[in-house]
């Protein structure tokens, strides 16, 4: 993943800035009234998210995922270590021009409508007045809330709030998206929609740093993952490298006759060092089954195509 390049003029080796660069991050939350004592939430974490990568941070509750994200966004102060976004110290406010953040289970101002919410965040990012309405329309369309844009958030479902959260995160066209449990509490259709959106954003070259409990989704969308436990990264790497079983091989056939399968079995049996582990039909996922049964799969595929067109930055 190194993007090192030689500088001809200076003769030194410089690295192109990564989307996220965390070095030796440690966070201790002090305990009130107990001087010198505290809770170690993050313990000497190093983490990189390459430009255009989707990085998934997974770990049990209380393992330090959200604290790392908050430290990256300047919401908590690191006890030690550094956090950078595209090479810029992330404690500097200007670094946040490049970041969109969706917190876990976000609650926005209930008195605002969906459109007002997106416009509010557009104003915070300094969008000019003529761009605010245009961008608001575009994002409501993108997250599938165009029809609900004039309704107050007090009447939104959890999934709708999550999607309006995504819309506000994308409002200034950030180069990095930080998503904390983006599909928490969302039904399978909404979850699939968000997943497709992440794919679509990745296609546009947006770097994504997410944490989730839904390991299957992380596996589907992420290029790299880090597993965090008790504040420490215990495994880290490209997802294909981490999950592949090196001493096993997979051959997937379509319309194979029983005779062919028997021949394959016989061939394997002839090899003394090889063992046939399993032969049978591959299983679909419960998610696919649900989407097919509820007739939502087609809608999701279609909307994903629509989203792809409407979110094209060009």
């Amino acid at each position, binding site marked *: *993943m190194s*993007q090192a390049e030689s500088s001809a003029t200076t003769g030194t080796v410089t690295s192109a800035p990564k989307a996220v660069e965390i070095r030796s991050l440690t966070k201790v939350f002090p305990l009130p009234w107990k001087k010198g004592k505290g809770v170690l939430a993050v313990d000497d974490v190093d983490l990189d998210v*390459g*430009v*255009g*990568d989707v990085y998934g941070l997974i770990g049990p509750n209380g393992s330090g995922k959200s604290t790392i994200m*908050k430290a990256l*966004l*300047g*919401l*908590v*102060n690191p006890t030690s270590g550094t956090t950078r976004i595209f090479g810029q110290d992330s404690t500097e*406010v*200007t670094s*946040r*021009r*490049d*970041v969109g*953040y*969706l*917190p*876990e*289970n*976000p*609650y*926005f*101002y209930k*008195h*605002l409508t969906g459109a007002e919410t997106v416009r*509010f*965040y557009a*104003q*915070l*990012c*300094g*969008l*000019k007045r003529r*761009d605010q309405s245009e*961008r608001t329309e575009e994002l409501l369309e993108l997250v599938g809330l165009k029809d609900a844009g004039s309704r107050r958030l007090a009447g939104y479902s959890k999934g709708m709030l999550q999607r309006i*959260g995504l819309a*506000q*995160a994308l409002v*200034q*066209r*950030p*180069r990095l998206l*930080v998503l904390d449990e983006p599909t928490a509490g969302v039904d399978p259709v909404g979850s699939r929609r968000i997943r497709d959106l992440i794919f679509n954003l*990745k296609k*546009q*070259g*947006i770097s994504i740093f997410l944490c989730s409990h839904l390991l299957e989704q992380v596996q589907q969308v*992420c*290029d*790299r993952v880090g597993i965090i436990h008790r504040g420490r990264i215990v495994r880290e790497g*490209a*997802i*294909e490298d981490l999950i592949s079983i090196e001493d096993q091989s997979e051959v997937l056939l379509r319309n194979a006759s029983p005779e062919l399968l028997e021949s394959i079995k016989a061939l394997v049996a002839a090899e003394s060092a090889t063992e046939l582990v399993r032969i049978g039909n591959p299983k679909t996922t419960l998610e696919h089954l649900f989407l097919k049964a509820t007739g939502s799969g087609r809608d999701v595929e279609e909307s994903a195509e629509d989203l792809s067109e409407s979110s094209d*930055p060009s």
Partner: protein
Amino acid sequence: MSNSSAAVSQPEPSMDLKKGLPLVLSKVLAIARNTFTQLVRMKVFYFLFAFSLILLVAGFFFADTQFEQKLKFFKDISYGFMLLFTTIFAIVGSALLIPRDIEDRTLYTILCKPVTRFEYLLGKYLGVIALVGLSLLFMDLIFSGALYVQEQRLLGPVLEAQAAVPAESAAGVQYATEADSIRKLGLNANTQKGVLSIFLTGAVLAAMAMLLSTFATSTMFTVTVGLCIFIVGYFQSLAREYFLSGSEGTWQKLLSVLVALIFPDFKAFHLSDAAASGELIANGLLLQLVGLALVYVVIYNLVAYLVFADKEV
């Protein structure tokens, strides 16, 4: 899934964004406008019905008494309720905002945008001030209208009687004096100066409550402590006079000086008593109060920023 980031074309930020002062103003005003809308949509302006009703009832009181008493009572009641509502809006409005933003995690989504904590606090403060100012303006309009009606009702018979007698006669002079007294107690610039002093009290209270809410753990704490500070501040001049003029010990004197420094002297802001009595309020005094309020507001906001700047949310 590809692991190569080199193959991905990196999008350039293509948004045409504001820069410099227009950007700062845009952010502060967006937060202020949102805060104002948030408070207004809590249906706070229903209190105006209560205020109108109070003035209507107060207008009927002391119907048979002298005009001085009648007008003074009416103005006292009006100013009293204006101060009460302003105090409630300033303290409760400010106390509600930051803890709720933290609790609802709305603060995360705001502070992870390119918004400084100072811009956030200033926006919140200006939103509360807009609410305090607008509600006071509405109350002032109702109060001024009602006072004008009262004044005209009292003035009418006096002017009629005055017109019926020669101006130089003893009765004519008496009627003229009476008409002047009614005008002095009626609607005039002094009345508005009294309202302005209430606004200044509200501005200082809102800044103080904002400071409290930056480290408070609950709205209840901010409201309770805010009200206590208001009461202590209101009576601190009495305490100061008592301790400093008497032969009390050094500790008492030190304490009273400390109280005077920390708690604003809200009694000093209370020009509405003078306005209710028809006393002339000098412009210089009003300017001094504006300056004093500004000093308190700036100091409270700066300290609030210092507390909030490193707060982990």
